[in-house]
């Protein structure tokens, strides 16, 4: 815990001082102050995105009993991309609104498809896979006709951290609040690790609880992906790394997953900003790559006590 905090604070200072221009944090000039403001904005943004992605993934992983899912499970990510691509295709905006509408439409269609002939989670997950697949082909189809901006479609599917305006900041705060809703249901999530009947006998209204948790997680995820695009891997990696470090109930796991997620995103964003001079790599690309390598190292180095 302490180590995570130290790393996070360290990342904070590095992200403020390091960039194309080094900034002296002790006595900045007015120009540097503007730069600091910009970097602080990005640092906060990256951290919030990390927290939201890992907390929503943690909740969904528990509810679906699958450690490999994240907030994209129900099609919200491909919905957001499709919305964005559509807004480019039609040359109208604002693209964030299109993306949000797209991801909400994806969510609604997943729920509609998933409720056909029953209301179990597996149905919902399968419906999510179907919606994801259909939307991906729609995205490919439309981007084939968008030769000139194929690169920007690609960069969107990779996820891009950037400074946000106040309107976007409000949306991010909302998604953060949705995460707090998830955290406030930690006790129920703990009980949902048991079988359905056991959870019911401990007083959890199984169906209502599961569906509201899924909805809240997917909504929070869709808000983030409609502004920044798709970040793969953070959501899967952060809770699993947290599971390696600590054991325990969801309250604790939310704290650790959130911190690891924020750290992963903040570090990746610094790398994305600074590694190549003159251009910026999409943060989503860095986070998938760095995260995967780190995760692999993490997994192998600690596999001994888990392999039994």
């Amino acid at each position, binding site marked *: 815990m302490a180590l995570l905090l130290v790393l996070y604070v360290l990342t904070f200072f590095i992200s403020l001082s390091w960039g194309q221009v080094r900034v002296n944090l002790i006595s900045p000039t007015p120009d540097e102050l503007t730069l600091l403001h910009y970097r602080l904005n990005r640092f906060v943004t990256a951290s919030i995105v990390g927290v939201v992605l890992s907390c929503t993934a943690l909740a969904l992983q528990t509810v679906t009993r699958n450690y490999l899912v994240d907030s994209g499970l129900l099609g919200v990510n491909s919905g957001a991309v499709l919305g964005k691509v559509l807004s480019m295709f039609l040359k109208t905006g604002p693209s964030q609104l299109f993306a949000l509408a797209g991801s909400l439409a994806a969510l609604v269609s997943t729920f509609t498809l998933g409720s056909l002939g029953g209301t179990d989670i597996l149905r919902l997950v399968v419906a999510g896979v179907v919606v994801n697949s259909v939307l991906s082909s729609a995205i490919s189809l439309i981007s084939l006709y968008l030769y000139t901006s194929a690169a920007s479609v690609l960069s969107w599917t990779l996820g891009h951290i950037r400074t946000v305006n106040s309107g976007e900041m409000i949306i991010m705060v909302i998604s953060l609040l949705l995460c707090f809703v998830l955290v406030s249901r930690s006790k129920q999530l703990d009980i949902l690790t048991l079988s359905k*009947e056991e959870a019911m006998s401990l007083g959890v209204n199984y169906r209502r609880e599961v569906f509201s948790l899924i909805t809240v997680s997917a909504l929070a995820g869709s808000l983030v992906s409609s502004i920044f695009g798709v970040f793969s891997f953070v959501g899967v990696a952060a809770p699993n790394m947290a599971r390696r470090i600590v054991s325990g109930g969801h309250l604790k796991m939310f704290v650790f997953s959130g911190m690891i997620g924020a750290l992963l995103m903040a570090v990746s964003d610094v790398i994305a900003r600074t590694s190549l001079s003159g251009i910026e790599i999409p943060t989503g690309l860095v986070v998938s790559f760095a995260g995967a390598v780190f995760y692999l190292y993490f997994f192998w180095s600690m596999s001994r006590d888990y392999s039994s």
Partner: protein
Amino acid sequence: MITVPKTHFSYNAHFSLFLPNMNIDTFPTFLIGPNGSGKTTLLKILGGFLKISPPVKVLWHGTLREAKPTYFAYMPARPTYDPNFTVRNYLMLSGNKKQLETIADELELKKWLGRKMGTLSSGWLQRAFIARILLQDTPYVLMDEPTSFLDPEARKDLIESLSRHPEKHFVISSHDLSFLSSFGKFVIGLRDGNVVFLGSARDFFEKGIEDVFVTGYIM
């Protein structure tokens, strides 16, 4: 006491369960029958997990009330758990801090309390499941095939731990006749969705057994 009305329950087109009027007031009660006879379905009906009408009623704090899942502790045939929980985390899910140490001691789980569930062997996992069920603050305990994955020694341990709790009203679905003979008092015999025997465990072994299992069943 649990009372079941005369009714029938259809799960889907392929399976129906026909129930006569039943009063279950001798515990441990065993639901005995071959696979697919409706034992688990009946267990879920008794606990109010599956609704029938008129409803199952349960004696709860002196009055007969409609059965609700919260009146029961339920142990499924294959309990699920988070492998990252410690045994203590897992037991705390039942919300009973006071008796945790006592029950853990009783099942010799005390030295495992800090271990992760994912690192336990199946025998110790089974003990953790039993401990959580016993910790839940209710007299009624429903268990679905608790002996199916146990070796003879573990089964003996299970019977001993359950016997230490005469205050609990166990309803156990099983096709394990030696488990029944050493622990059961009352038997509901099921076959193809029909109740074909209702009576004491002794009577079951004398005259009910061939109605439930095929003739010539060897114990």
